[in-house]
């Protein structure tokens, strides 16, 4: 009798824990019918010497993805580096509202200057995905890091974990938000908005595994570097002509 009771209880426990486990779901991206994510693995190349700092990419991104207009919510932004003869570097956001005039180096003292477009690096070893307590931030099969805004609890741990400052809390949804490589466009065979509008083709987008594509050519023709390699985040955004001052 005792034994039967025990087995009865054990069965109840098993079933109930099974039910609980059944509620455990992985977050997934919504893709249109006919799109097969297993056929792709996306990456981006950025040619620093081609960037003229026009800011079209930032504007296009804000429009395409309804990013708040304030000067502190960016999925992509452009930094202006001015390096003085004494080695000192001044960095500014090209958004005029953020450019602080007091930091400017006088023209004669400048030794080199360039623009660096920044965005989520879509890391292959993403710290944000690692730390998200509820699995709301995840990597798609085609290599893009997304946030499921229906699941995100707004704890902001991912923002702390991102070494690139690529994330923010969207003030309307109160969930984490970031560059998605315009995933909704990719799955419809379109380029990310920033790539599409860049007048100098400083941004090159494509499949990392493709053998003949603008991205493959970019990788063949340039010496490449990624941001903060020592953190082992394995970015899928790589830069050519990247200066040592850029962090």
């Amino acid at each position, binding site marked *: 009798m005792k034994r039967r009771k025990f087995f009865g209880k054990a069965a109840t426990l098993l079933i109930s824990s099974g039910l609980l486990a059944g509620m455990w779901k992985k977050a997934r991206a919504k893709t249109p019918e006919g799109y097969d994510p297993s056929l792709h693995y996306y990456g981006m190349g950025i040619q620093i010497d081609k960037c003229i700092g026009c800011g079209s990419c930032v504007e296009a991104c804000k429009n395409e993805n309804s990013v708040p207009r304030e000067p502190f919510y960016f999925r992509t932004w452009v930094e202006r580096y001015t390096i003085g003869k004494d080695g000192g570097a001044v960095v500014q*956001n090209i958004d005029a509202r953020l450019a602080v005039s007091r930091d400017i180096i006088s023209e004669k003292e400048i030794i080199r200057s360039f623009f660096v477009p920044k965005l989520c690096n879509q890391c292959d070893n993403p710290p944000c*995905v690692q730390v998200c307590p509820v699995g709301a931030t995840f990597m798609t099969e085609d290599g893009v890091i997304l946030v499921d805004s229906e699941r995100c609890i707004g704890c902001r741990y991912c923002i702390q974990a991102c070494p690139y*400052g690529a994330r923010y809390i969207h003030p309307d949804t109160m969930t984490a938000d970031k560059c998605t490589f315009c995933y909704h466009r990719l799955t419809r065979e379109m380029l990310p908005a920033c790539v599409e509008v860049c007048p100098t083709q400083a941004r090159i987008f494509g499949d990392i595994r493709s053998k003949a594509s603008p991205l493959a050519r970019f990788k063949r023709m340039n010496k490449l570097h990624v941001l903060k390699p020592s953190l082992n985040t394995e970015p899928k955004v790589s830069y050519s002509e990247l200066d040592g001052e850029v*962090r």
Partner: protein
Amino acid sequence: MINPISDQLVELLSQVTGYIYPNEIEVHWSILIVVYPYLTGLVAGAFILASLVKVFNVKELQSVYKLSLLTALAFLLIAPLPLLLHLGHPLRSYEIFLNPNFSSAMAMFGFVYAWYLMVVLLLELWFTYRRDLIVWSESERFPMKWIHRAIALFSTDISERAVNFDKKVVKAITIIGIPSAFLLHGYVGFIFGSIKANPWWSSVLMPIVFLFSAIVSGIALVITLYMIILPFKGEKIDMKCLDRMASFLFYAVIVDFSLELLDFIHRLYESEESIRILSELVMNKLFISLGIIQVLLGMLLPLGLMISIKLFKFEEELRKLLYFVSVILIQLGIFATRWNVVIGGQMFSKSFRGLTTYKMEITGLEGLLMTLLLLVLPLVILAILFKIFPPWKESVPDTGPTLVTGRG
């Protein structure tokens, strides 16, 4: 339409020095996240003080055993509140239990917390008080009688065998409890220490520093409560007990201080890429909260006071006064420690090129008033717990069974 959050952030733009990534203007973990590790630290520290009695048989501390246990419980009950209030979507917090991401340190929160509350604190409390509850309920009237009977889960067995069993269980739970208390607060340290993106946090020492500062703050809190409550009840402070607690506190402060000093020297000596911005952070943004409050007032001064107590045989009243001043200063210092870790870690840019500012709200969900409320709430709960589990009431002598017979 401009969002009110954005509105506040616009003000901060002019206070940024150097360059920060544009999304970094917002300090994401506010004062509430300062309160969270502070509260859990008090829990772990108070519990470890309680375990000294049971596991290491420190007899002088017997009279604060129950006080420490109840203090730990009262603060643990409130500890998750600041986290919950801080979430962008508090109503989704259950996801952390239903859909935990096992690679996330934060996802383990639910499990560590539940383990500590259910398995360690509540069980230990129940077995500690079970016999008392039964005995008390015998001579009480409604409603206390029923409250005590219900909390004892209507058990009635106070035979010697049962009481001995209780004692054994308490000891066993305490032995599990010590590593659990280490786990609870070490884990909070790990949440910060494992963020490689942030050089101010990323340190293998972080869980250990958290742990020892937890022990320091927990013991200091129990001493404070003990020194405030006893005179109010018109009872005399047991100097042997106080001296002993202060002695443990003294050693804990020394270990804590050495660890933090080691961390500091290590950073300076390694002098990594981030050292310049971190020095700027310490010299500008954290000078008062770290240099003055945490180190000078919160550590060196109390250490000096306690050393002088050990060196010179002061009379009782002066000793009490010095102890009291020390524990209040230490409490202040540990709160500053939490502030410096949590807020300090967010005031420099991960580009290592600039500093931002944190502007605390006064009202509002993450404001100063809420913080004060969260710090007072555990004391209110503690007062209620005192009513239900009087910690000072002497246990009725062990000849109990004659008092209650024929029930069940």
